[in-house]
């Protein structure tokens, strides 16, 4: 019998991924055997350090592009930019958890390596160019998040959220796999390039493509679940509310970002030729998402839930960019992701500052009179709210403006119209938080606790929100260049 020749792998292309994964595995062991109980913060710092190293290791790769693992993984500037965004999201999510976990008596060192593994899953989704890799990336991310969601055991809401997430996640995974099966049946391949080649062989004739389109539909649905597009969004508010706040923060930017990144690659590189088919589907989903997400947030008095619905709405806006990915939408997507990640993590950071031991302070009334008690915290929160609402000169405005201009320029004028109108509605509920903070007396005695990590996180997010609004040009240039190599698959 022949021995199996393991093909050479260009490990350079996956340096950040490798660092994150190996560091996380190592950290699991270190946490158990080295770091004493009660000093688990150390694990957190080590995790942040690992993510930082991975980020730095990515810098020399800026001018590198290529694929490895039999073309299942690419490195291009698109994936590298996303990698950095994910690393930032992971690091900030750890920073806000450092004091949250002990304060709520749910500190376990595994939290930090698990976040790292989730980041690895996200990077995998940004780099993967094969449906099976994307599927496994989703699963790495999902299974990690099921665990993290239920991390606040024995708090029942946390377990409930994890349960709902898991049931629906597995349900969606079933559809996703079936979609892969159908696509495999139609094309004989699962690689994005192979699918594109299959579609590119002949002019797109839907009549002959029932099988393929059924598969593509199911794969789109699988992504839609992760992105939380209406009507596949139902899990989002419950899961966000139930899970520990740092996890909700991480999910709101991480899962969404990774799933959108993979969706963009799938749409733009595999099924671009089937555009007449998927455009109406995604357009309908986008409209439903923008409308329902913002409507759901409208009447919420629970700020955490409000942010959950708002994240649904934002996914709708980002979807506009994805639909015109090849016409400049991809860079709008990257910029939006960066702006949204920083802003949303900042908002969640403020939410965490208000939470006390065993007590949820998510009611909008708890924000009453925050300006009197903690002026800078209130100003930061106002900044995040305005950024989410899209008021200049914040990052959120710039991001929305990019997305809407590219969508308009790409011929999706009426979708941009819906986007602009729904974001006008959205201003109302973001504003309510500001009104509470600035125009009301404190409702009850709450002492916001600002630990170092949290403080740093809020400051970083706040400053970045302003810088991205006032000086977006350098970042835009960065993501713009990232596109030149986007076709790497």
């Amino acid at each position, binding site marked *: 019998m022949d021995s199996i020749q393991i093909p050479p792998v260009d490990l350079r292309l996956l340096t950040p991924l490798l660092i994150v994964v190996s560091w996380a595995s190592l950290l699991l062991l270190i946490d158990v055997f080295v770091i004493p109980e009660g000093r688990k913060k150390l694990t957190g710092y080590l995790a942040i350090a690992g993510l930082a190293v991975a980020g730095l290791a990515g810098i020399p790769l800026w001018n590198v592009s290529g694929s490895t693992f039999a073309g299942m993984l690419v490195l291009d500037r698109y994936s590298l930019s996303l990698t950095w965004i994910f690393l930032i999201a992971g690091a900030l999510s750890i920073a806000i958890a450092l004091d949250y976990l002990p304060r709520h008596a749910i500190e376990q060192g595994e939290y930090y390596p698990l976040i790292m593994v989730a980041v690895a899953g996200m990077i995998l989704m940004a780099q993967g160019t094969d449906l*099976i890799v994307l*599927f*496994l990336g989703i*699963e790495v991310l999902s*299974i990690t998040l*099921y*665990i993290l969601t*239920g991390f606040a*055991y*024995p708090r*029942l*809401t946390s*377990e*409930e*959220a*994890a*349960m*709902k997430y*898991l*049931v629906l996640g*597995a*349900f969606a*995974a*079933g*559809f996703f*796999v*079936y979609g*892969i*099966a*159908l696509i*495999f*049946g139609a094309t*004989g*391949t*699962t690689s994005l390039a192979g699918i594109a080649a299959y579609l590119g062989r002949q002019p797109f004739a839907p009549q002959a493509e029932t099988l393929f389109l059924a598969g593509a539909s199911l794969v789109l649905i699988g992504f839609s679940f992760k992105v939380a597009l209406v009507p596949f969004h139902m899990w989002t*508010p*419950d899961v966000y*509310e*139930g899970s520990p706040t740092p996890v909700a923060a991480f999910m709101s930017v991480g899962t969404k970002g990774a799933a959108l990144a993979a969706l963009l690659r799938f749409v733009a590189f595999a099924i671009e030729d089937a555009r007449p088919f998927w455009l109406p589907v995604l357009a309908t989903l986008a409209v439903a998402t923008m409308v329902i997400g913002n409507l759901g947030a409208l009447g*919420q008095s*629970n700020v955490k*839930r409000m942010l959950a619905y708002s994240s649904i709405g934002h996914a709708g806006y980002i979807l506009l960019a994805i639909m015109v990915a090849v016409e400049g939408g991809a860079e709008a997507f990257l910029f939006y992701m960066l702006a949204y990640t920083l802003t949303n993590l900042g908002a969640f950071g403020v939410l965490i500052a208000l939470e006390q031991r065993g007590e949820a302070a998510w009611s909008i009334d708890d924000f009453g009179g925050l300006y009197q008690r903690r002026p800078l915290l209130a100003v930061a929160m106002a900044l995040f709210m305005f950024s989410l609402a899209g008021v200049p000169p914040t990052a959120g405005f710039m991001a929305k403006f990019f997305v809407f201009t590219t969508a308009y320029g790409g011929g999706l004028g009426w979708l941009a119209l819906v986007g602009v109108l729904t974001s006008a509605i959205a201003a109302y509920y973001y504003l309510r938080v500001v009104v509470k903070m600035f125009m009301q007396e404190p409702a009850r005695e709450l002492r916001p606790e600002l630990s170092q990590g949290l403080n740093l996180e809020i400051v970083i997010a706040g400053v970045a929100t302003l810088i991205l609004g006032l000086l977006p040009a350098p970042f835009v240039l960065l993501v713009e260049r990232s596109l030149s190599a986007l076709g790497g698959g």
Partner: protein
Amino acid sequence: MVPTSYYILLSAALFTIGVLGVLIRRNAIVVFMAVELMLNAANLALVAYARERLSIDGQVLVFFVITVAAAEVAVGLALLVAIFRTKRTTDVDEVSTLRG
């Protein structure tokens, strides 16, 4: 030989039964079983297509799906045990405090 479409029809039927299981059954354990059925149906389709195309890749994919299914079940059942310890139930309708 049996035409591939027979297998696909069977697989679609099994998949639908799995979906119905999730929609109708309340016992979380049975819900997980239904999800397993869905994944199995997908596997059947994959293998059938692999046979038709004489491409072994489909079988490799099944291998991965089985692994993922096992991992999901493990985590899911662990979660179920955790919930059972505080709530004394495996009825998914009972865990519905988060809403609105």
